[in-house]
Structure formats: C-alpha cells, structure tokens
C-alpha cells in the first residue's frame, strides 16, 4: 500500500476559494478561473501515490505549484479540497493535536533556504523536533548527535548556523529533518540554493542515505537533471496540475504531451543518458574457438574486432582482426593474442563520461555489469548521435 496518497488534492488561493471547485470540475483552466473569479489555482486536483521507500520527485518551473503541493502534505498550507492519506489515514481530518503528532513523528522537512534557527547551535537546531516532543535532554542529545554523524558534521555541534557554509547548513537542515526518524522526509528545493558541485555531492549523499535508511522522500525541484538523477518516480507539474507521473525513463522516452516533450528537450542529455541507453549488441566469440572462426565471424558481420567471452558471457578481452590473422599464421590460440585493455563501462555510466574515455582508444566501449558480464557495446557514433539528440531510444533495457 502507498504510504502517501493524494486524491483530487486541490488548493485555491483567495477569498471564498470553494467556489472555484465546481469550475475546476468543469475543466476550466487556471487563467480562465483567475480572469472570472480572481481566485488563484495553486494545486489542481493532484492525484498520486507514493510507495514506501521511494524518492518521489515533484518537478516543475517556478509558479507551477510544486512548493504548494508539498506543503499540502503536512498541511503547512491548508488544502481547499481533496484528500491526503498517510498510511490510509486522512491527514485533513486530523485535529490540531493529531496534526502536531503527525508532524512530530511521521514527517520531517528540509527547506530551500535551510531555515535554521540562528539563535540555536547546530545541535540545538537538530534536536528542535525532539525538544518540542518533550523528549528528555540526554536522550534527544544522543539522537541528535547520531543524526549529525549521519550527515558527516560531527564536531560542529556547538557552532552557530551562520558560521557554516551553505552546503554544511543544508546538511544540518537534513540532520534536523531526520533526527526524529520520520517515515517521510519532505524536501522543498533542498539543494537549489547550493552551488553545482556541492549540489551534486549532496544528491549523491542523499542517495546513499536513502539506500541506508529507506525513507520515503518527497523531493521538490525545478531542475530536471536533478529529478532524473535521484527520482524513482517523477511527477511533472504545470500550472498547478500534474501533467505526467512516471519513472525517469518514462518521462524521458515517452513524454505524455508536448509540454513534457519541450521540457525534456532542454535536458542536458549527456548528464542523463547512460551507457545502457545507447549501447548496441556486442559481436562476441567464445574463447575456445580458433582464429580461423574468429576471422570468418568478422568478415560475416563486417567488424574489425570481436569480444571474447566465456560461456557465461563474462568478458575476457578483445580479439582484433590483425591479432586473429597473426594467431592463424603463427599457430597461436585466441587466448594467446587476447587484448585485455579493452575500455569498459558500467550500464549506469553517463555518456559524457564514456565520451571522455573513448578519445584515446580505437575500440568501442564494452558495457559490463557488476559481475563482468558483457551487456553490449557503445560505439563512438552512437554517443555523438545521442548527444546531438537524434537517436531513437528504447533499445537498451533501463538500468
């Protein structure tokens, strides 16, 4: 069962917002409703289900309603209509005390501009959520220290936030969000205020944390590259509506409509596409065969090299045409003329990394999984075509 589920979740801003609900039901646009009623549609009948342990990315440009949507989940902004279910319980029906308990125990939050309390030290910031629960001082200090360690800031506990760099401040923000061990972590553009290198580090670290802690994360971003990088599921928003929900591959390869398509066009493909997207079937030969068979294979398939594999398709090396003819002349086995310096990459390798590795070698890049099993090859031409954006995708199975 989904841990969080939104049903026709709607937020209208302005006086008497309920009167816009029937207009939304009629399918009126955000502009038309604003023109007729002066009401602003923040979130329009959002429907989604988030499975426990997922990173669910809500992605959209500014003004698309993504920050409003995440605040509807813990009711920092009160929804106008619809339902938000947490493990099947309607959050909108909670009384103030139940809502407080829900916020204290079940959801943590990390903010774009960190929102650390300037009058509290790092550790006092982290333990804030525990303090308001009335957890005794020693216990909450221990829990906060663990959280601090998790984000790699041990030793900074008695500093004040202003003494820390932006990246460190957001680590504190993350530690604060995780301190009460919530089921769900809401992250509102949590990395948007950080510079690109720090941002990438933080994304990596979040993925590591996530694989360790198995939190459900709702991550808001306006950056599609970030969304594609960390999201298990991505919900793309426009004008308050969710226009597509899918895995990164689905968003990229099967845009639901023109809007998503235009969005995806702007993606820096070299940072999104991986070897698995552009690889082709490898021409292989099992190592026990002789050089004559190898040369015959090459002639038949019009290639100048073959990948030598064992029976389990584990990559052993490369046989070039020259080496095969030399083996034939000198009576050597394939094993003896095997080239072992063939460039290899994992299926998750980004193609801009592949491209860097290709310059020096005449050979294509072999794509192997963690067990050294040969999955395919990436040719230089395929990388260039992919970078130029005119490739038909969908051949590679998504990693």
């Amino acid at each position, binding site marked *: 069962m989904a841990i969080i589920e939104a049903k026709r979740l709607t937020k209208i801003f302005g006086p008497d917002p309920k009167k816009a609900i029937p207009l939304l039901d009629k399918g009126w646009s955000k502009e038309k409703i604003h023109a007729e009623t002066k009401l602003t549609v923040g979130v329009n009948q959002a429907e989604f289900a988030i499975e426990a342990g997922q990173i669910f990315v809500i992605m959209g440009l500014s003004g698309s309603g993504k920050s409003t949507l995440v605040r509807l989940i813990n009711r920092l902004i009160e929804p106008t209509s619809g339902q938000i279910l947490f493990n099947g319980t309607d959050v909108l029906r909670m009384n103030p005390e139940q809502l407080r308990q829900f916020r204290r125990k079940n959801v943590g939050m990390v903010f774009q501009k960190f929102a650390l*309390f300037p009058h509290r030290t790092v550790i006092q910031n982290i333990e804030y959520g525990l303090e308001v629960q009335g957890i005794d001082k020693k216990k909450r200090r221990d829990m906060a220290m663990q959280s601090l360690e998790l984000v790699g800031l041990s030793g900074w506990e008695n500093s004040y936030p202003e003494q820390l760099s932006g990246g460190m401040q957001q680590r504190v923000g993350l530690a604060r969000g995780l301190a009460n061990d919530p089921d769900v972590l809401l992250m509102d553009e949590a990395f948007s205020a950080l510079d690109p290198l720090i941002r990438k580090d933080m994304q990596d670290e979040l993925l590591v944390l996530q694989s360790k802690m198995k939190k459900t994360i709702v991550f808001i971003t306006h950056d599609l590259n970030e969304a594609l990088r960390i999201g298990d599921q991505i919900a793309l928003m426009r004008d308050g509506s969710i226009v597509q929900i899918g895995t990164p591959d689905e968003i990229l390869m099967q845009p639901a409509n023109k809007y998503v398509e235009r969005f995806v066009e702007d993606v820096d493909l070299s940072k999104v596409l991986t070897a698995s997207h552009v690889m082709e079937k490898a021409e292989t030969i099992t190592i026990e065969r002789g050089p004559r068979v190898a040369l015959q294979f090459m002639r038949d398939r019009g290639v100048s090299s073959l990948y030598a594999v064992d029976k389990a398709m584990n990559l052993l090396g490369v046989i070039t045409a020259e080496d095969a003819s030399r083996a034939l002349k000198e009576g050597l086995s394939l094993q003896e003329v095997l080239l072992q310096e063939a460039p290899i990459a994992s299926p998750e390798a980004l193609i801009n990394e592949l491209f860097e590795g290709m310059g020096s070698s005449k050979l294509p890049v072999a794509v192997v999984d963690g067990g050294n099993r040969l999955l395919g090859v990436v040719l230089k031409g395929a990388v260039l075509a992919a970078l130029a954006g005119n490739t038909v995708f969908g051949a590679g199975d998504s990693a």
Partner: protein
Amino acid sequence: MSMNIPKIPLADWIESLEAWLETNLDPLFGAIRVVVGGTVGGLDTALNSVHPLLLIVIFTLLAWFIGRWRMAIFTAIGLLVIDNLGLWSQTMQTLALVLTAAIISVVIGVPIGILCARNNSVQKVVTPLLDFMQTMPAFVYLLPAVTFFSLGVVPGVISSIIFAIPPTIRLTNLGIRQVPAELVEAADAFGSTPSQKLFKLQLPIAMPTIMAGINQTIMLSLSMVVIASMIGAQGVGAYVYRAVTQGNTGVGFEAGLAIVILAIILDRLTQQVIRRTKTNG
C-alpha cells in the same frame, strides 16, 4: 460659515466619563494605587537604605559586567558627582519611579505586543490607540491621573506608563512579525505548539528589537519625571520643577545634570544588553 452648528460638547462628555469612572471603578483604582505605590515605595526604600558609596560600587560592578571599562568608569564618576551635589536620595527616588514605570510597561506592554503580532484585528485597534497616547500632550494625562489616584507618586507613574509604554508594545509587535516566515514555517513543520513557537523561536529572535523598545520606554519615562513632579511625585524632577518656578538656574542645572547622568547610564546599559542579545544569535 458654520455658525449655526452647535459646538460638540466633547469636554462635558470627557468629564462625565471621568466622574463615572471615578465612582464606579474606585476599587480598581484603589488596587492599582496600592500595587504601584508599594512598588515605588519599596524600590525607593531599598535604594535609599544602602549606603550611597556601596550602591555606587554595586552599580559600577554591574556596568563593568555588562559594558566593560568605559561604561564602569562613567557610572562611577557620574554617580559620585550626583552624590557630591547632594542629590543622591532624590535621584534614587527618581530611579525608583522610572524603574517602576519601566517594569510595569514591560509587564503590560510585551504581552500586548505579542497579542498584536498574533492577531491583525488586535493590531488594528491598538495601533491608533498608541498613536493617540504618544501624541496627546503628556500634561493632559496628569488631570485624570490625579482624579483617580490623588496627588503623589502613583499618578506620576501612571502617566509615565501611558506616555512610555507605546515603544515596548510597538517593537514587541514588530520584532515578532519580523521573524522570517520560513523559520516560523520550520517551527510549524516540526510540530511546535503555539507557545513553543513563541518561547523557543519568536521571542528569542525578536529579543534585540524588544530590548530596543524597552530602552525607549525607559528613556521616555525618565523624560516624564519633571512633569510628574507637578502632581507631587518626589525626586530630582521636583528639584527641577521648583528651580523653574523660583527662577533658580543653578539649582535647576544641578538637578538637570543628575537626570542627564541617570539617563546616560540607563541608556548605555540597556543598549549594551541589546548588543549582547544580538551577538548571541
């Protein structure tokens, strides 16, 4: 022009209101008289029961603790000058009056400021009232104050409070409203109750601003001591008032100087406290 329109009998209305309040709220005024009179009297007795030199040492140490050397030296010399001029006990009476007015202003003003910050309707009612209190000439408060509390130090304190409380209310309101919305949101997101939010976030962040208001309140109530002496409040203000009525410039200057010294000490001490609350985060 408007010859035929009769004058609004505002003065009559105010006086009947005053009379009505006097008859109907007498027990309340009595209680206020006891509390305020008791506080001023107690402080006055306490300050005057300690030997001046010992008190000067205590004040100097306090100044050193809060503001370091320059502050301490000024305090010591300033208070010694006051003692030398023979105005010590009057100055302590004045200090008792000012402190009482300031304490009561804070006790009443900070909660009102908090209410204003939390509720726009309260703010809409209170703000014009504060404008009125600050612009109405202070002398006007003296008359009803005397009617309700009779002559002496109590009406002096009461009119000082009316005159001096607005900055505390205003700046408490402002300070809390200026707490960044994202911090308030964070406090909400972690499940704070309204009072946890107030005491753990809003008041600490607003503290420098609130202290600036309290500083203003102290300064304004100090500026009321001469006016308050017109209705029988004792202290150094009464010396100034007497010197003015008798045309005695020398005495007036001595007493005025004592007020200035007291004002500078109180101002610098509270300023220093503001600076400290700021640097502490």
